[in-house]
C-alpha cells in the first residue's frame, strides 16, 4: 500500500514546475522565474538521495518524529525533496505518516521506503511502548518552552537582575532554581493551581495581560499547551532520575542551495540519558552566522539568500549544533580546472574551493615568494645577494629548497619562541612577583625547548605540570604569571585548546557547548596549585598542595575535576595538573593538535582555518574541517614536528598564490584562494628596518644588535613596537597583536627616527657609493635590499628623474638616501604580499 505525505499529496499530479514553486519560501524574494527554475532543476542529474536521521526509534505515544529527504545532484547542489517523495510503509499498522511526521501506533519494527525520480531510500522505524504516555515534566517539557519563547534570554528574564522583578537563569542553566522562582517566589503569585489557565506566567506569555516582553506565543499553540498541561498537573517537581539530554544532532549535515529563495528544512534530534531520542526541532532556537546568505525561521526552515557560506545553528538545552549551508547563484559559469598540487594541503583546499565554485589565483612570482618565505619563516628580509642568487637560479626545485634552507636557521625557532612567549604571557609583573630574572629564565627555557625541537605535547605536559622554584624550574612560572585559579583554567583552554570558556563562568555558554559544570569542573584541576616564597625573594616555589577545591556558584557543590567534554578522572593521590596535562596533550584530544596547526597556519596565511585562532566553538566552525583534520593527523603522526608542518605549508600551492584577484575569489578571505597582503608585524618590521639600514637595535637587557623578536619581557617595548601593535602580553588573546594601520604609524615612518635617523646612522648609501656604484646601481641595490626585487624600468626612470643632475657627491648621497627613505615608507615594504 502506498500512502503519501499529505503536503506531497497535493502535488500528486503537479508538474515539476509546481513542485519548485512549492519549495520556494512563501514571501521570499523571487529571484528567478519558475520556468527557469524548473528547467534548471529538471536538467540536473540526481546523484544521491539521502534520508535523515538514519533510523527512527519511537518510544511512547507522544514520540512523533520527523524525517527529511535531501537530493544531491551531480553538480554538487542539493535540494530538500522531503515533501516530494513517495512514501511506502512496510507495515502500515505500526505507524501513521502525517506530513513529514511519523506517529507511532503500535509496537514493532518496519521500514519506510522513500522514492523520488526513480531512486529510493529506506528508513528503518522501531516503535516501542506506543500506548504509553509519560507525565509532563518541568525539565523535559517546560524548560524548552521557556527557552524557545526567549523568556530566559539575556535581554529578558535571563539577565543578571531579571526583568520587572522576575529573574530566570540565563538559557536555563539552573532549572531547579527556575522551578522555585516560578512556583515558590512571591507566594504563588506567578502560578495559580486552582485556575491554571489564569496563572500569571501563562497570561504574560500569551499576552493576555500587559507584558513588557509582549506576547511570546499564541494561546492554544503547542508551547502554550505544554505549559498549561504542566500547570494543570499542579506544576510538579521532576523526579530526580528524570532523563537529561546528553547529545544533539542536526540534519542534514550539509546543504548546497542554488538560487535565492530555495529552502531547506532542518531537523534536530536530542538524545537523552536513558538512551531515548526526541525530535526537538520545534523547541530549538535557530540562528545563522550570515542571515543574508541563509536565514532560518523559528521552525528551522532555512531560506537561501545571497551567494556565500553560512553556518546555521540550533540551540536546545545546553547544546548548540550547526550545519554549513552554501548558497550559489543560478546559472553560474564555472568549470573546475586541473590545478597543480605540491603538498597534501592542496587537494583539500581545492576541494573546498570547488564546492564554492571559486577559482584560485595563479602562483606568485619568484621575488614575491622569496620575500614572503623569508618574512614568514625567519622574520627577516632576504639580503640583496641572496635575492640576486635566488632570482637567477634556474632550478625547478628552488622554492622547496629555500623553505628547507630557512627552516635550518636559528631565526626560525626564534620567531616561534616569540609567538609562544606571547601566549604564555612572558612579562615582568610586580603584582604577581614575576621578576625580570624569572622572566628571562622562563624565556630561555622556552627557547631551549623549541630550539631542540622538543615534541610539543611533551613540552606542554612539562609546562602544565611544572613544580619547583621559578628560577630552578622555569616552566613553573606558568603558575606565577597568572595566580587566579579560574583565570589559569581559562588561559589553558584558550591557549592550548583555542577556546574561550569564560562565558560559562557565570552561565551556560549560549553559543557553545560549555556549561557551568564544565567550567568549574575544568577549573578544579588548578585548585591545588601551592605557592610559597623561595630563599631568593624574587623566586616563588610552585608545588602541588593536595588541598583546595572549586565550588559551583549555584548551590555550592564541590566540583570534581572533569575534562572539558570528557570524563571525570580519578585524581586521588595525584597532581591534578598532571592528570589534566596528560589528557590535554593526548593524541586523541580533539582540540590540542588542531589548535597548534591552526596557530601555525594563521601565521602563513593571515587568517586561520578557525578564525580567530583562539575562538573555537560550535558556532565558529573551521572553514575547511577536512584540511584542519589532515594537518592535525599528520602533525601527531610526525610526533609534533613543527618543521615538517611548516614545510608542508610553505611548499604548498595554497601558500604560493599571488594576491591578484579574479572575479570568483575577489571576496573570499577564508578559503585560501588567493594570498592576502599582510602588514609585517611590529617586531619583524623593526628588525627588517634595522637590517636593511645596518643600524643595530638596542633594547634594555639585551646586547646591542639584538632583534626585537628576541625580547623576553613583554613589558620591554619602545614607541615603534607599541605603535605598530606589538602584543603587551597582558592577556593571552590573539587580538593583542594589532596589524591595522593608523595615523601614528604613518607619521612615525614619515618623521620619526625609525627611518631618517637610521638611514643617516647606517651610512649604507655612502658605503655603496664608495664601492664605485652608479646612482642607478645604488637604486637597484636598495630595491633588492628592501623589496627583494630589482626595480622595473619604469620605476627606475621615475626615481632617477628625481635625482639631481649635478655630480656633487654629497648632494647625490643625500638624494639617494631620500630614495632609501621612500622605500622604507613604501606600502610594498610594510606588507608581506
Amino acid at each position, binding site marked *: 500500500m502506498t500512502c503519501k505525505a499529505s503536503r506531497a499529496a497535493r502535488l500528486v499530479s503537479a508538474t515539476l514546475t509546481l513542485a519548485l514553486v512549492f519549495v520556494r519560501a512563501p514571501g521570499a524574494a523571487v529571484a528567478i522565474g519558475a520556468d527557469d527554475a524548473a528547467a534548471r532543476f529538471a536538467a540536473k542529474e540526481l546523484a544521491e538521495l539521502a534520508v535523515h536521521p538514519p533510523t527512527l526509534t519511537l518510544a511512547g505515544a507522544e514520540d512523533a518524529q520527523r524525517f527529511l529527504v535531501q537530493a544531491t545532484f551531480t553538480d554538487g547542489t542539493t535540494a530538500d525533496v522531503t515533501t516530494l517523495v513517495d512514501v511506502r510503509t512496510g507495515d502500515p499498522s505500526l505507524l501513521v505518516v502525517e506530513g513529514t511526521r511519523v506517529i507511532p501506533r503500535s509496537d514493532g519494527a518496519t521500514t519506510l521506503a522513500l522514492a523520488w525520480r526513480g531512486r529510493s531510500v529506506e528508513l528503518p522505524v522501531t516503535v516501542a511502548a506506543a500506548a504509553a504516555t509519560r507525565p509532563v515534566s518541568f525539565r523535559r517539557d517546560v524548560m524548552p518552552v521557556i527557552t524557545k519563547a526567549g523568556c530566559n534570554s539575556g535581554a529578558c528574564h535571563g539577565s543578571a537582575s531579571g526583568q520587572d522583578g522576575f529573574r530566570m537563569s540565563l538559557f536555563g542553566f539552573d532549572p531547579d532554581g527556575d522551578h522555585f522562582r516560578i512556583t515558590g517566589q512571591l507566594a504563588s503569585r506567578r502560578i495559580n493551581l486552582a485556575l491554571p489557565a489564569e496563572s500569571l506566567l501563562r497570561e504574560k506569555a500569551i499576552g493576555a495581560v500587559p507584558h513588557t516582553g509582549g506576547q511570546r506565543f499564541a494561546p492554544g499553540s503547542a508551547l502554550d499547551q505544554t505549559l498549561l498541561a504542566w500547570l494543570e498537573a499542579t506544576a510538579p517537581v521532576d523526579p530526580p532520575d528524570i532523563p537529561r539530554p546528553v547529545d544533539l544532532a542536526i540534519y542534514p549535515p550539509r546543504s548546497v542551495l542554488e538560487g535565492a529563495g530555495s529552502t531547506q528544512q532542518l531537523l534536530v534530534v536530542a538524545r537523552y540519558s536513558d538512551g531515548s531520542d526526541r525530535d526537538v526541532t520545534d523547541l530549538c532556537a535557530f540562528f545563522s552566522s550570515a542571515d543574508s546568505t541563509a536565514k532560518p525561521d523559528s521552525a528551522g526552515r532555512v531560506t537561501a539568500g545571497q551567494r556565500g557560506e553560512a553556518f546555521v545553528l540550533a540551540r536546545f538545552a545546553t547544546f548548540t549544533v550547526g550545519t554549513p549551508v552554501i548558497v550559489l547563484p543560478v546559472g553560474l559559469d564555472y568549470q573546475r580546472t586541473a590545478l597543480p598540487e605540491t603538498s597534501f594541503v592542496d587537494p583539500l583546499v581545492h576541494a573546498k574551493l570547488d564546492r564554492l565554485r571559486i577559482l584560485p589565483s595563479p602562483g606568485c612570482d619568484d621575488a614575491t615568494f622569496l620575500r614572503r618565505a623569508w618574512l614568514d619563516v625567519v622574520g627577516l628580509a632576504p639580503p640583496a645577494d641572496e635575492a640576486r642568487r635566488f632570482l637567477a637560479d634556474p632550478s625547478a626545485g628552488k622554492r622547496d629548497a629555500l623553505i628547507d634552507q630557512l627552516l635550518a636557521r636559528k631565526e626560525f625557532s626564534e620567531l616561534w619562541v616569540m609567538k609562544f612567549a606571547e601566549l604564555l604571557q612572558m612579562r615582568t609583573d610586580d603584582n604577581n612577583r614575576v621578576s625580570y630574572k624569572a622572566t628571562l629564565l622562563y624565556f630561555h627555557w622556552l627557547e631551549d625547548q623549541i630550539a631542540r625541537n622538543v615534541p610539543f605535547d611533551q613540552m606542554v605536559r612539562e609546562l602544565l605540570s611544572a613544580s619547583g622554584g621559578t628560577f630552578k624550574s622555569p616552566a613553573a612560572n606558568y603558575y606565577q604569571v597568572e595566580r587566579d585559579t579560574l583565570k589559569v583554567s581559562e588561559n589553558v583552554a584558550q591557549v592550548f585548546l583555542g577556546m574561550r570558556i569564560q562565558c560559562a563562568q557565570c552561565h551556560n555558554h549560549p553559543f557553545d557547548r560549555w556549561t557551568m559544570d564544565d567550567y568549574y569542573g575544568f577549573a578544579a584541576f588548578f585548585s591545588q596549585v601551592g605557592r610559597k616564597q623561595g630563599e631568593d625573594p624574587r623566586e616563588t616555589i610552585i608545588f602541588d598542595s593536595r588541598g583546595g577545591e572549586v565550588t559551583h556558584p549555584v548551590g555550592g557543590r564541590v566540583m570534581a575535576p572533569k575534562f572539558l567534554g570528557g570524563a571525570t578522572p580519578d585524581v586521588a593521590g595525584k597532581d591534578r595538573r598532571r592528570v589534566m596535562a596528560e589528557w590535554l596533550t593526548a593524541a586523541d584530544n580533539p582540540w590540542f593538535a588542531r589548535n597548534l596547526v591552526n596557530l601555525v597556519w594563521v601565521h602563513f596565511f593571515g587568517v586561520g582555518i578557525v578564525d580567530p585562532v583562539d575562538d573555537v566553538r560550535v558556532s565558529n566552525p573551521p572553514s575547511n574541517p577536512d584540511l584542519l583534520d589532515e594537518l592535525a593527523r599528520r602533525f601527531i603522526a610526525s610526533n609534533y614536528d613543527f618543521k615538517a608542518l611548516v614545510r608542508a605549508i610553505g611548499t604548498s600551492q595554497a601558500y604560493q598564490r599571488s594576491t591578484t584577484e579574479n572575479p570568483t575569489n575577489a*571576496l573570499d578571505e577564508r578559503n585560501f584562494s588567493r594570498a592576502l597582503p599582510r602588514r609585517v608585524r611590529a617586531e619583524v618590521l623593526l628588525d627588517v628596518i634595522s637590517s636593511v639600514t645596518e643600524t643595530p637595535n638596542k633594547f634594555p637587557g639585551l646586547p646591542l644588535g639584538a632583534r626585537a623578536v628576541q625580547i623576553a619581557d613583554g613589558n620591554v617595548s619602545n614607541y615603534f613596537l607599541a605603535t605598530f601593535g606589538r602584543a603587551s602580553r597582558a592577556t593571552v588573546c590573539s587580538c593583542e597583536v594589532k596589524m591595522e594601520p593608523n595615523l601614528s604609524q604613518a607619521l612615525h615612518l614619515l618623521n620619526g627616527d625609525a627611518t631618517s635617523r637610521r638611514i643617516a646612522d647606517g651610512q649604507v648609501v655612502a658605503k655603496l657609493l664608495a664601492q664605485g656604484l652608479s646612482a642607478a646601481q645604488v637604486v637597484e641595490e636598495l630595491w633588492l635590499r628592501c623589496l627583494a626585487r630589482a626595480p622595473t624600468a619604469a620605476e627606475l626612470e621615475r626615481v632617477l628623474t628625481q635625482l639631481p643632475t649635478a655630480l656633487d657627491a654629497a648632494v647625490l648621497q643625500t638624494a639617494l638616501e631620500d630614495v632609501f627613505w621612500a622605500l622604507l615608507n613604501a*606600502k610594498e615594504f610594510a606588507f608581506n604580499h
Partner: protein
Amino acid sequence: MTDRPLPRRRDFLRVGLGGALGLALADRFRLALLAQVAAPAVAGGAAVAAAVAKAQSVIHLFLPGGMAQQESFDPKQNAPAEYRGPYRAIDTKVSGLRFSEHFRQLAQVADRLMVVRTMSHGEAAHERGTQNLFTGYRPSPALQYPSFGSVVSHELGPRGALPPYVCIPSQPVIDAGSGYLSSAYGPFSLGSDPVNPNFEVQDLAPPAGLDEARQARRRALLDAVDRDFKAASRADEISAADVFYQRAYALLSSPEAKAAFDLKAEPEALRNEYGHNAAGQRLLLARRLAEAGVRWVTLTYGGWDHHDNIAQGFVGQARELDQALAALIRDLEARGKFDSTLVLVTTEFGRTPKINATAGRDHWPRCFSILMAGGGVKKGGWYGTSNATWTEPEDVALSIEEFAATVYHLVGIDAGKELLAPGNRPIEIVKGGRVVPELLA
C-alpha cells in the same frame, strides 16, 4: 587634501563563514566609496548629517574608577549620617540644584550645565561599566562594540586635516577603540601628556635638517615607489595604510592643523585659569582640538575608585576638576563655541549609598551622576532625582541607550542606522534607545 574614505574591510561580506559574494554587495561597497569620494572634502561625506548636528565637536571627559555622586553633583544634606558622606552641599546658580562643597566654581556656571542625576545601568565591574559609557552598549561576550568616537569617525570622517577622533594623552581603555569596526577608525593618540612641560605630539615635526625642498622630493619619490604597487593591489588593507599616509601629509602640510596641538599658543593666564595640572591642561588642549575641527576628543582625569577613605582621596582631584571644567565652560562661552561644542563628563558608575567599613564607598551602577553641557543640551537644569539614599532613581532614569541615542542625535548621527559587524551582522549604532527631549535645548 582629499578625504578618501577608508576601505571598510569589515563591511565586506566574506566568503568564509558569514560571507556572501553577491555582486550586489560588491556594488554596494563601490557605491558607498563613490558617494564618499564625491562628497565635498571638508564635509567628509556627512553634509546631510552635519546640517542637523547641534554639536560640531564633542569633548568627552571620562573619570575612571567611578566617581561618587554623593560627593560631587548629587549631595543630600539630609541623608542619614552613614549615607551622607563627609562633605557639605552648597547651592548653585540653579535653584534646587546643589553640588558638593568642592565644586564651587562649577556651581557658579551651573546655569550652563545639565546634570543627569539618575544615570542607571546594571554593570558593577569597572571594565563592564566603562564599556557601557564608551560604547553605549552593554558588554557582549561575542562582540566588541565601537566607541562613540570611532562611530563618529566612521560616520562623519575627518574635518579638514585633523584626525576625527583624538585621545589625550592616549587611548585609555580598549573600549575607547574601534570595536568591530576597522581599527582605522580608532583614535589618534598623542603619545604625550599636555601637562608635561615638554609636551609635543609624537612625530609631528619633520626630522631636523630636512628643508622643504627635500620634503617635497621625498614625497615625490614615495609616490614614484608606491605607484605601481598600489595600482596593482586592490586589497583594502593596503589602501587603508595609504589613506593614513594621505592624512598624515594633510596634517603635516597644514599649519593650522599642526597649530591645534600647540598648547604653548594659549595665553599663560588662560593656562593658569584651567590649572597647571592634568585636568586643566588636557581640557585646554581638548578645547583647542575641538575648535580646530576634531570631531571627538576623549580624555581622562584622575582615579575615582574610592573604596577607602573617600574624605581624603576625593578632595584634591575634585578641586582640580572643578577649576578646569568651570574654566572650560567659561572659555567656550567667551569664544562663542559653547553651543556648538558638546561637553560630556562621565564615569563608569557611581558609588554605594552607605559609607563602608573602610570609610569609602563601593561600586553602584543603579543610580549615579554625569554632566552634559553645550552642543544643543538644555542649559541650567537636571534630569532625574535620586531617591533619599541614592539607591534608585526616584522618578526618571537615564539608560545607557538613551544617553547614547541623545549624544548621537546631538552630533547629527542617526542612532538607528545599522553598521556591519564581522560576519555581515547588522548592528544598530544604538540598540533601542530614544532621544530624550528633556535633555535638549
